[in-house]
């Protein structure tokens, strides 16, 4: 399984790894700042744990780089099955938090299977849509190819982990567009999606509905969930061009921001490092996505291409949804910012996906039968 020859090592994408490392370090710095609670004088050990996750992530990255992605695609059905079992496990023995069942406790570490499943998901996408050709997909084709996606999607949706479910849906849509669909299909899908929306709405939990309503009108609940949206905006806006300085964010440190080391870490970065800091983070992600797509172009093998496109989509949507939420362009949903938000599952998942991309890069000049 671990065949690596010199030619593959030559194509090891050191730039990709460097960007990932730089982003992760930015994250650790931000989490360090978020760890300090001025009102209590307490320093939570989040940043230390994040450093551990970072190294665990690097190990994951190298592991996935060493394994040929083709092997993984070969074993896609098996991976799919084990992923589903993991998701089912959450429903039965998972931990309840924020009205949702998302975690499995693994000796102190809370594993979030919906995160880990992202790796399986991109592999499944590559497996299903790897028949790249000139023909555009019809409605029937899409349904045939997407049938297996429905079970995991529903499992995640009903945890409920609305945010992650949305990410899956958006990524799937992106891959479809990439693969090519007929105009008629596009219109039909769009209409049917809009038709499903009300159904989805009534399946939302109360707090999720509140978030959407509050997003539409933050003043609706200025001291409740709308309060945090306003505070996040104040935090970001008051950061200005250069920010208030490391550890000097007033909004974030006074605990006005909830989840400031996870979901709202981008607000903290913008408050303490200003537009400059926020801009650098966005730029780093643009470079990262560019790099992934460049690998997608360079490889001549279909499943590798789709894999890269899918990974780029997941990364983009998470960055977009997370930052859009902090600048109040979108409702508050629990989506972490890749590599930056605190969390082991997310770190390992994204490192794993980058490892997949690197695996494609390393093997981009291999013949199809070579692994």
């Amino acid at each position, binding site marked *: 399984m671990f065949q690596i020859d010199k030619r593959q090592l030559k194509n090891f994408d050191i730039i990709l790894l460097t960007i990932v490392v730089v982003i992760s370090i930015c994250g650790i710095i931000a989490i360090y700042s978020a760890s300090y609670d001025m009102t209590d004088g307490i320093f939570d050990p989040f940043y230390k744990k994040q450093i551990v996750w970072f190294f665990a992530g690097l190990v994951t990255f190298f592991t996935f780089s060493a394994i040929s992605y083709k092997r993984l695609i070969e074993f896609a059905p098996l991976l799919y099955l084990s992923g589903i079992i993991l998701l089912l496990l959450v429903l039965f023995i998972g931990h309840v938090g924020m009205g949702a069942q998302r975690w499995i406790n693994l000796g102190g570490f809370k594993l979030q299977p919906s995160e880990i499943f992202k790796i399986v998901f991109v592999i499944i996408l590559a497996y299903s849509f790897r028949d790249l050709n000139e023909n555009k997909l019809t409605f029937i084709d899409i349904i045939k190819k997407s049938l297996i996606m429905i079970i995991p999607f529903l499992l995640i949706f009903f945890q409920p982990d609305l945010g992650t479910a949305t990410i899956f849906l958006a990524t799937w849509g992106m891959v479809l567009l990439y693969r090519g669909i007929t105009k008629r299909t596009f219109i039909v899908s769009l209409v049917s999606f809009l038709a499903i929306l009300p159904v989805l709405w009534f399946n939302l939990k109360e707090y999720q509905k509140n978030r959407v309503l509050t997003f539409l009108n933050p003043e609706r609940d200025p001291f409740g969930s709308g309060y945090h949206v306003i505070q996040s905006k104040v*935090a970001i806006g008051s950061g*200005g*061009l250069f920010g208030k300085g490391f550890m000097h964010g007033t909004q974030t440190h006074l605990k006005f921001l909830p989840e400031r080391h996870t979901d709202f870490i981008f607000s903290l970065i*913008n408050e303490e490092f200003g537009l400059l800091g926020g801009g650098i983070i966005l730029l780093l992600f643009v470079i990262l996505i560019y790099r992934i797509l460049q690998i997608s172009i360079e490889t*001549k093998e279909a499943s590798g291409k789709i894999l890269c496109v899918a990974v780029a989509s997941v990364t983009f949507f998470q960055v977009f949804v997370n930052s859009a939420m902090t600048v109040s*362009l979108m409702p508050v949903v629990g989506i972490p910012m890749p590599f930056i938000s605190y969390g082991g599952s997310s770190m390992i998942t994204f490192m794993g996906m980058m490892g997949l991309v690197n695996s494609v890069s390393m093997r981009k000049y291999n013949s*199809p039968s070579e692994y």
Partner: protein
Amino acid sequence: MLFRKLEDKILSIYNKKTIIFFSFLLSGIFIIFCRLIYLQIINYEKYKKISDNNRVRVIRVKANRGFILDRNDNVLVKNKPSYNLYLVREDIEDKDTLFETLEKKLKFDRELIEKRLKKAYFYQEVLAYRGLTFEELSYFSENIEELQGIKIKLEPVRDYLDSTSISHIVGYLGEVTENDLKTKEGYTGGDLIGKTGVEYFYEDILKGSDGKKYVEVDSLGQVINTFDYKKPIPGKTIKLSIDYRLQEFAEKLFEKKQGSVIVEDIHTGEIITMFSSPSYNLNDFIPYISVEDWKKLVEDKKKPLLNRAIESHYAPGSVFKILMAYAGLNEKVITPRTEFFCNGELSYRNYNYKCWKKGGHGNVDLKKAIAESCDVYFYNVGLLLGIDKISEYADLFRLGQYTGVDLPNEKKGVFPSRQWKKDVLKQIWFPGETIIASIGQGYVSLTPIQMVNMLAGTFNGGKILKPHVVKSIIDGQQELNLKTEMYADISIPEWIKKAIIEGMKEAVYGTHGTSYRARVESITVAGKTGTAQVVSLKKTEKYDDDKIPEKFRDHSWFGAIFPAKNPQYALISMVEHGGSGSQSAAALAGALINKMVDLGYVSN
């Protein structure tokens, strides 16, 4: 085939799509960037202002510290309200005038308060003064408009039932140090923290956790709206195993004497009484201890802050013979009937080791040896055992080690061994030193708590317990009893216990017994005296307590086990410079045991 190379034509289609795809993603990120510019550049002023004048503040609500009860639910320590003065940096208009006004009215360390203000987070309330009098309170309340930036809060401080007899056990509170702030969580400058005693040892349990109020304030900093309130969680109540009545009684017994007394329940390891004399006044520390008072306490030659029961160690003298007797019997170097002849001294390698009784005791068996405290008998036992065995037994009873009592600053004392002497004094062990150690002199130096725990361990059948002053922790309706920890169970046979206790009984009730002063009418007490030499007298000098100054008098020890028939409690009393053990320590113990009989602890 699973994988194939794409034709160039198809490749170019998809590569073009990738570029379109990338531009789509790029525009998404660009939208976010534009939004950031909108918030951080265009609307900067607006948000900066909101952030600066943040009308939303976080106010700490102090948690009530847990109460401390005695074993009979007497409330020894509770809280009373205190008016405290706080400052809020951001609300202060003219710092110098404010401080001048405050200094006219109050005595406080301006430098310290300014430092605290500087370090405070935004809009934090910084403690400036604790315990305003009603006069001061009314002055500040009336002039609050001119004194912008001050805030008066009602907060709990300690209130003691008795401020002297329980001082060493309860301990005092003081303000957190810089170091505490760095190493401990949940404190800010000016907070009170346990410094000694149970207050220190059980800080985490007593403290509780402070609450928080998220409030909206007006331009004067006055709260106009509370929109989130995290209630403080009060500290848990601690119930001591100490009996306050005995504590009070012990204080009277000591009067002007220096020393300590401990009573331990030998089956549970609970400390029923622990008093150290002289004591200090806990009320001196409320609301602040003044510099002069503190200096007086620290510089007092009698060291009132010292808890002599656990922090001072002395040569245990003859009380140690109890352990020697056990070791000798258990190692079978002697039997209760073994006799040694005492002619007043033992000659060993050209040295003479004297017995305290000049003419000697004649033929001595174990019972007589304990009752009359014959030194020569135990010199012989010591020589038969050898220092290695003796240290081994001392080790079993944790002599020279922490007993682990739940109070801070416990001292280890010293129990010597060959290795110890090699490590510390860089010398080899001399056999003569074994002889001296056999009667608890020489290098041996032990704390009263070690001694009482040794007695407890011997007479409860060999269970070496961790002594404790806290009986239970009360959390709301729940009472959680502290489990007694056991270091070891060396199981001491009944016949050995009996043999030793016979000697100790004889010591109290026999015609030649050394401990007659500890006699109690209604129950049988078994006891052993001890004397720790303070200065060694020349052999020719005659020792007469009454003729030498008090500070050169020997320390007097007394160890007791009662009731003798069915041992329940172990007692150690120790009077510094009290002369020989048969005098003050034994009499004091007798009175305390009598009191315990009166209170119904023991009966025959």
